[in-house]
């Protein structure tokens, strides 16, 4: 059942909300007493949650509509819901968080602008609007990275981000120009239809697919282009939350929106799979060994985005979309509550019982290997990471461990099944080799984690921890070449 009229209304409401954000971004400084500025921000923040609920419902109702270069489909609707939801939380948080700071007004204005552009990006259908909002997000974000321009670390991270963002802009624009000219289309939604009409993919379209994938890799801070993402703690926490829960998703959103095209370039998909897998391994290992909470969260984003791109590379676009949403909610909250001191230490579990765990992991691997031939790629990949998590569960408290394992498994299965109801159609079957590759990489990660926890004092473990903590020296190399 679809309700186009609802979707039309939805788009109008979305446009109004985007307009409110952009207007607030441009006009906040006109509101003179600070209390008025705060009231306006509170309003945009408070509107976000019910509106997010509305767009979630619209997504579930499978309604769609398009006008003014925007499109409301279940995919864009749920992405828009996510963007404004996270944006509202970040805005609401910033009202008190930066209270009193003379920079607050500019900060809130730039935050509104960025949120407006993100909203636009999520709904954009016309190629030029898609590219323009992609670029504008990054430009307004640049201002947010420099809230403390006097901090050398902030300037360095912003510079790196700026350079990589221009690279991804160039790749995206080139790709969209190629797509538009080759297929004679002006919107993303027309791409899939046009591709169906013409069998076989021209070299131009192959190049466009490669460029799109490159743009996504750069945008989602994939190893080794992750440097800026793990260094942006030089700007207030809400910006980190927005970046890690909103902006880095743009790469994944791009691939999901252009999925019909990118699946035609096998070589590029391999590039995507390898980059994603590399980011999963390096990001996960680095996150485990950071000395500070925000660095650990940042490295974990690299891994999570890598996993999401790996899902895309396997054609599991609904899984990728789900991962974007789940990760964004989790990571936004994790950053915004990073000031909470944990009362109970998370002690590394004793080495004992680790061999059992290794056996368990092996058996899990075999099962996954067996089911891999029948189940869809996204489900297999999720099953694999579930096994990876299960073997890490602290076994000292048997009851709690069992309950945690059950909860983890049930949660994952229930959420994923529910999500596949409206979004399962996004998946595009891909060749199985990349799935094997993905599974092998996850096995490697599992093996390394077993080594680290079972033999923490072995020379290899010590070296691995050191290299992981230093992010495998990519940032040191880049910083040195920047002359710092």
């Amino acid at each position, binding site marked *: 059942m679809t309700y186009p009229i609802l979707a039309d209304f939805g788009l109008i409401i979305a446009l109004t909300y985007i307009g409110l954000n952009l207007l607030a971004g441009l006009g906040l400084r006109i509101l003179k007493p600070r209390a008025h500025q705060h009231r306006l921000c509170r309003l945009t923040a408070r509107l976000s949650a019910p509106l997010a609920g509305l767009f979630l419902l619209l997504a579930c109702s499978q309604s769609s509509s398009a006008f003014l270069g925007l499109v409301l489909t279940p995919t864009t609707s749920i992405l828009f819901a996510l963007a404004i939801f996270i944006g509202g939380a970040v805005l609401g948080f910033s009202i008190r968080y930066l209270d009193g700071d003379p920079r607050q007004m500019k900060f809130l204005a730039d935050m509104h602008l960025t949120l407006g552009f993100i909203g636009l990006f999520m709904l954009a259908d016309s190629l030029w609007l898609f590219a323009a909002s992609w670029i504008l997000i990054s430009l307004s974000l640049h201002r947010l990275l420099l809230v403390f321009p006097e901090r050398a670390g902030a300037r360095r991270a912003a510079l790196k981000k700026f350079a990589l963002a221009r690279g991804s802009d160039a790749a995206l624009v080139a790709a969209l120009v190629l797509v538009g000219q080759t297929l004679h289309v002006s919107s993303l939604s027309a791409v899939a239809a046009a591709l169906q009409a013409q069998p076989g993919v021209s070299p131009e379209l192959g190049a466009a697919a490669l460029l799109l994938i490159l743009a996504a890799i750069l945008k989602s801070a994939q190893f080794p282009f992750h440097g800026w993402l793990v260094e942006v703690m030089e700007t207030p926490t809400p910006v980190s939350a927005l970046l890690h829960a909103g902006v880095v998703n743009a790469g994944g959103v791009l691939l999901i929106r252009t999925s019909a095209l990118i699946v035609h370039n096998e070589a590029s998909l391999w590039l995507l799979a390898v980059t994603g897998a590399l980011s999963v391994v390096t990001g996960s290992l680095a996150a485990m060994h950071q000395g500070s909470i925000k660095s650990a969260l940042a490295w974990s984003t690299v891994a999570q985005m890598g996993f999401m791109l790996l899902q895309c590379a396997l054609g599991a676009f609904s899984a990728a979309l789900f991962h974007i949403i789940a990760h964004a909610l989790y990571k936004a909250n994790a950053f915004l509550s990073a000031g909470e001191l944990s009362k109970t230490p998370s002690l590394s579990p004793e080495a004992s019982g680790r061999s059992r765990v290794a056996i368990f992991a092996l058996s899990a691997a075999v099962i996954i290997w067996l089911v891999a031939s029948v189940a869809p790629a996204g489900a297999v990949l999720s099953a694999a990471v579930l096994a990876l998590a299960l073997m890490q569960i602290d076994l000292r408290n048997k009851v709690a461990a069992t309950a945690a394992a059950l909860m983890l498994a049930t949660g994952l299965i229930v959420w994923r099944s529910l999500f596949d109801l409206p979004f399962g159609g996004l998946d595009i079957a891909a060749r199985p080799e990349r799935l094997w590759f993905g599974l092998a990489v996850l096995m490697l990660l599992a093996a390394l984690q077993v080594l680290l926890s079972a033999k923490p004092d072995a020379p290899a473990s010590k070296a691995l921890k050191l290299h992981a903590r230093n992010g495998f020296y990519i940032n040191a190399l880049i910083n*040195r070449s920047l002359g710092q």
Partner: protein
Amino acid sequence: MNALLPDFVASRLDGLAQLRAAAARIAPQWPLASFIAVNPFMGYVDLDVTDAAARLRQTHGAQLLPGTSAASQLTSLAAWVGTRKGFDGEAFVQERISQWAASHLDLNRRDGRMSGDGDALFAAWREETRLDPTPDIYGVGHVRRELGRLPGSADQCVRHLLDELDLPEEACALYLERLAGSMAGWMALVRHIDWTLERDGGRGHLAEALLCIRLVWDVLLARPYGVEALHEALQSALADQADLRPDLSDLEAQEAQWLGEVSHQLKAPPSPAAKGQIKAVFCIDVRSERLRRHLEAVSPDVTTVGFAGFFGLALGVREPMGVRPSCPALLPARFTCEVPQTERPGKGLSHALKDLKAKGGAALAYVESLGATSAGAIAELAMGWTRAAPTRHDPVRWADTPDLDALTQTAAGFLKASGLNADLTPCVILVGHEAQARNNPHLAGLQCGACGGRSGADNARMMSDLLNASEVRQRLQAQHGIAIPASTRFFAAVHNTTTDQVALLDQVHDPLIDRFRQACERAAVFVRAERAALLGETPDLAALSRRAADPSEVRPEWGLAGCAGFMAAPRALTRGKNLEGRVFLHDYVSANDPDGATLEQILTAPVIVASWINLQYLASSLAPDVFGAGDKTLHNIVGGGLGVFEGNGGDLRLGLPRQSVHDGEMLRYPPQRLSVMLAADTARIEAVLQKHAGLRHLVENRWMRLFSLAPDGQIDKERTRSGWEAR
């Protein structure tokens, strides 16, 4: 190198002693969970405040006083090499040490890394640094290779390297202090272990080992340039000491103005003493002053007493991470208590799940399975709904069989020192205090410092239970001659300094307690009005509760900002006088203290702690870049709660966040030194000063000011370097 053997030996011995002295200059700083105020200049109080300011300018780059801006921080060899190699050498070494220390000292590891063993610390660092290729990337890979050729222990390394540098004694001391100052945060953190061990009669070597690590970096980095180049670099740096003339006049003007206002208050006739049936004992914390004043004003039933908020009970509380002291840092915890473990069913589960987030690849499945559960928290933030987490006061009990005689002695000490050994009313309430905030790494700094950065509730409860116990009362009578009337009952309560609510810890139905509750509610209205004005907040409970419950709130309350005075005097002198929440009020009646023992105790414990607090605020206000923790919006918790970074990295930050002293436009209170006012005979005070050199240093070297009060309560004489001077 020096070829002559006798000189060689002599300078070697001196070198190690000098390194130890330089390490001891750094004041300790506790991890976040027990973040108590410490005098950041603890190691410099043997110098006059202006000399110390000049020295801190050179060694830490801190501009504490006007007139110190002429000279800059001394250069280090790392900085010197960095300039030649084209990178920031100082930041490079700081980052190497900081990242290693954050991981090595992580609080989530419970394997004795904080044991005070300097050689183990040094060996761990050396092992790891030899594996780390970062120096090669920066073109200084020789450091790793030369590291293998250094002697084995930290002590030997120090001797060897200082010998190589062969600096004159004073230059060497300055140079080593400069190195310590370049990583003052980490030095302070490990110093808290060494300092605690020393307090308890032991000895720790972590700070020395860390300073040795910094020395190794410095010397090894510069080695390829030859000893002559080294000397040249250091000599020119040491010679480049411009004339420093630190100026105290800003502080003095501020203090003069404040003292004038206080004198004016003290001149007013005191309010008549109430003959109420309720005595409420409050912590001396400056935040108690407002509540005490209004409580006495609204209710004739209540008289208040000021005493350090641990109520004399050196408590330790057993927690998952070990026994945490719930007493002033000056004392070791003597009596251990614990919260009876009621195993809540969900606790193990949530811990097992939370644990997975930090376990690399496991976080991928965690997110897919449970990530969406964060939606509730996100909605809360977007809507601005604040959920006041009720502060729990789980009843505590003794962890071991209590030693009743020792406890009775402690109780007797408390009763005598607080003047509660006589004139007991039927109802005595011990009111601890606590602060409430969410998402605030420095929350412990707002809690009761006398309880080790914890809530004062446990101490209030244990002490009141003790004083109600019949065995203890019998012993008090028999062994100490203190008779507590059978009609007298002790109660425990806690004052929430963020919301100014006072809660009784146990459900009691007693007419006097009901009256006390009502009085507190009425008084709190006035207290909130005073505090809300300073916070720019609506003066009501809802608004202040919002601050306590809002995870985005960076200023839940002003804490002890503005603390300016310490008064040990009978309450009669201060009752009804508006001291604006800026004075530590300790009850002291000199007539009841014939041998001066109580005065000595006050001067050597609460006064010291008050000066620590005052100097911490002063340092964080005057030199926020060095002695302040920086901007809260950039804070990044390090090593499971060792401290915070401001941003990605750098040194562990010292002191208080900018938001604790600054409202965004200006400092909340202009800094001033603590003015201690004692209603006691100057000869008495002088006797204590002569006995305690540390205290004398604080006064004579102008770190705090000391006044005597005349019997009528007027500020009478000031103790200066040259003696007692009439004002």
